[in-house]
């Protein structure tokens, strides 16, 4: 079974900034992304919990985006520019996929 190497971007970002991030990914013409909830966490700004919150100001989400290595750098730079002034974590890792032409 042939596999292809891709990059997996994982961005933990504040809920209110999620729309903006997705707009940037769309503008970079990535083939897609998935958003996973984050229910609590801790960082330089201290710990937080989603439970009971009525404002989404403090919540975070995790955006996962599989991109082709040829485009990874471009996407990363655009994403980095957006997340840089914000509470956010951006990691990149290597994954393999079967349907290489999809990404």
């Amino acid at each position, binding site marked *: 079974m042939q596999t292809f190497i891709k990059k997996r971007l994982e961005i933990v970002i*504040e*809920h*209110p*900034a999620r729309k*903006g991030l997705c707009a940037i990914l769309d503008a970079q013409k990535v083939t897609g992304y998935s958003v996973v909830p984050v229910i609590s966490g801790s960082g330089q*700004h*201290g710990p937080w*919990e*989603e*439970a*009971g*919150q*009525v*404002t*989404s*100001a*403090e*919540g975070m989400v995790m955006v996962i985006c599989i991109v082709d290595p040829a485009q990874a750098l471009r996407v990363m730079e655009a994403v980095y520019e957006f997340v840089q*002034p*914000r*509470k956010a974590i951006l990691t990149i890792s290597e994954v393999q996929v079967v349907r290489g032409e999809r990404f």
Partner: protein
Amino acid sequence: MSFLDLALGNLLSPVVLFFLLGVGAAIARSDLSIPEAVAKFLALYLMMAIGLKGGVEVAKQGLTPTLLLAVLAGLALSFLIPLLAYAVLRAMTKLSALDAAAVAAHYGSISAVTLAAALDVLNRVGLTSEGYMVAVAAVMETPAIISALLIARRAVPKASSTTTRELLHEASLNGSVITLVGAFFIGWIAGPDGVKPVSPLFTDLFRGLLCIFLLDMGLVAGRGLARAKKYLDLRLVAFGILMPLVAGAIAAVMSLGMGLSIGGTMVFITLAASASYIAVPAAMRIALPQAEPAIYLTLSLGVTFPFNLTLGLPLYLAAAQMLKG
């Protein structure tokens, strides 16, 4: 009734007691929590209930010229309170310009649950307020955000990459504003008869669900207090208590020329005195991402909201009675 009677009656009402229960549980580090989905739903429900009630009142009483006056006064307050708050914060505390602007936005806008609690207090003492106060509440939600953004831009030109237009769109289409305004018009269009079949949900359950919502607010406020030490100093706490009093006093003065009832006056003071905790924090994360959220959330939710709920409301009612009684 004297202020003391009002304050005591307020403190011993289930609504406030459940809030205190939540604060206590959070401070004791209980794992009690209300699922986020339920909390968000209750917030939405309160908006719908308040909006419908206001709309039905307007349908019954018709529009009066006072409406326009009250709306304009509300707009002005929402725009101007942030200027005042910003000046006070910069003079009295060590907050950076950005943080001060973000905090200021919260005090210009309003808190719907404080409004709900005010309506509950009026209900308990047998008073009502003008239905259109809901419209006043709705128009006061957004301008403060714009006002604060302009302040921040002037102080720190690169503070925000969001354009005013984007932000205006974002803020005026905020879910809670839309729900409040939408329900207001639905109540107005459908009128008392049309709304009657839904009143078991939106009227009869109002106080009970408010209790549960306040339990949740207590938990969130209590958890926020745990980190207050790190982010708030005494001057900021003082600001969180004095600012509502000052804003409320301004509103009280303005109300003198407005022909509002006692209940309406109290609601108007409460709107000015309350600080937003849903719409504005989210808008600030978008518009001023470098302002520290722990500061404005802790101030609004951990200091000003509990103060308003416990002592503020009876005080504002006593003031309204004095002015219009």
